[in-house]
């Protein structure tokens, strides 16, 4: 066995990363090689010194600073409120969307079937999505003991809404504009 290669194995041995067979193999070599035996002793001393070097501590007010920084960021961000607001916006936009569809059907008959299908499917997906989110939030609040489910729900809610409240709000507003434009268009055509 080449000693250079053996040095790496000695370190792996000291690191506890060698299996039994390799460990026996390396120990046999060390017993018969003074260079490697010397290397093992030096490494043991180095490991000992490294283990005695203490962990360092930050300044005494560190935890307080971290916590106040988190609180400030939380107040500015207020994820809970933004989630709720985004959910409300998305939900009301969906409701209006469905209302507009109903109106469209009621007001005009010239709307192509493809457009109706498209509008219908988007509204359906949106409604299911919104209802699922609402249900998740509701059940999470209701069953406060089921922490696993709650954490999962919160993750989903936060991931989808909390991270993109502005995006959701924009979509909701665009839906409102769309509803308004549809209404105008349909009324113009009707008259």
């Amino acid at each position, binding site marked *: 066995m080449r000693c250079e290669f053996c040095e790496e194995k000695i*370190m792996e041995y000291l690191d506890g990363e060698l299996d039994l067979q390799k460990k026996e193999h390396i120990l046999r070599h060390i017993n018969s090689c003074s260079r490697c035996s010397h290397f093992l002793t030096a490494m043991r001393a*180095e*490991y000992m010194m490294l283990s005695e070097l203490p962990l*360092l*501590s*930050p*300044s005494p007010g560190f935890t307080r600073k971290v916590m106040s920084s988190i609180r400030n960021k939380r107040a500015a961000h207020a994820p809970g409120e933004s989630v709720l607001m985004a959910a409300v916006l998305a939900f009301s936009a969906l409701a209006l969307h469905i209302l507009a569809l109903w109106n469209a059907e009621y007001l005009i008959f010239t709307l192509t079937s493809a457009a109706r299908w498209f509008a219908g499917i988007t509204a359906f997906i949106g409604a299911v999505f919104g209802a699922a989110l609402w249900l998740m939030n509701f059940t999470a609040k209701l069953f406060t003991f*089921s922490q696993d489910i709650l954490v999962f729900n919160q993750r989903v809610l936060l991931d989808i809404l909390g991270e993109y409240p502005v995006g959701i709000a924009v979509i909701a507003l665009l839906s409102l504009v769309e509803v308004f434009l549809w209404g105008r268009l349909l009324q113009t055509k009707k008259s």
Partner: protein
Amino acid sequence: MGQELTGDENYAERKIPDDEKIIKQVLLGDATAFEILVERYKSKIFTLAYRMLSSMEEAEDVSQEAFVKIYRSLKIYDAGRTKFSTWIYRITYNLCVDHLRKRRETAPLAEDGIVAPSASPEELAVAKDGARILHEAICELPEEYRVPLVLFHFHGLSYREICKVLNLPMSIVKNRLFRARRLLKEKLYGGD
């Protein structure tokens, strides 16, 4: 599951809560629970930052930044895939790498972003001869060798965990760890 969870408060009184339990509490909106995690890991995070940045002030700033980032990213932490400590070391390591990059950009003359280790009163208190020599020898190691060494010996990470923190393959991690120790041995005891 229900049995364990309904007895949650009693459980907390009996036993120090583990990381995952605290994370759940934080995700439920109890931000103060995060304080336990800060207290638990601040020395380790700070030591890693200090060993990478060699400056007490900068290490403190980056550690603080790391904890804020950890807090904000808790909801995407996947306990099934990574140990919490490995995950937070990775966040800290990445922040330190960014910090070193910025340092290099603002002071291009500084060699490899390494500054002379600053000796604070706290540092001096622990710096007895042997420890001081070792501390200086670690600081003098190139960053790529120093970090795996610190993660293994100060943070007790396995080879595999170091791979995850540094996002490097096992062969490179092993190689850097070995080279770091060889370099350290040379600095401490001279060549062969």
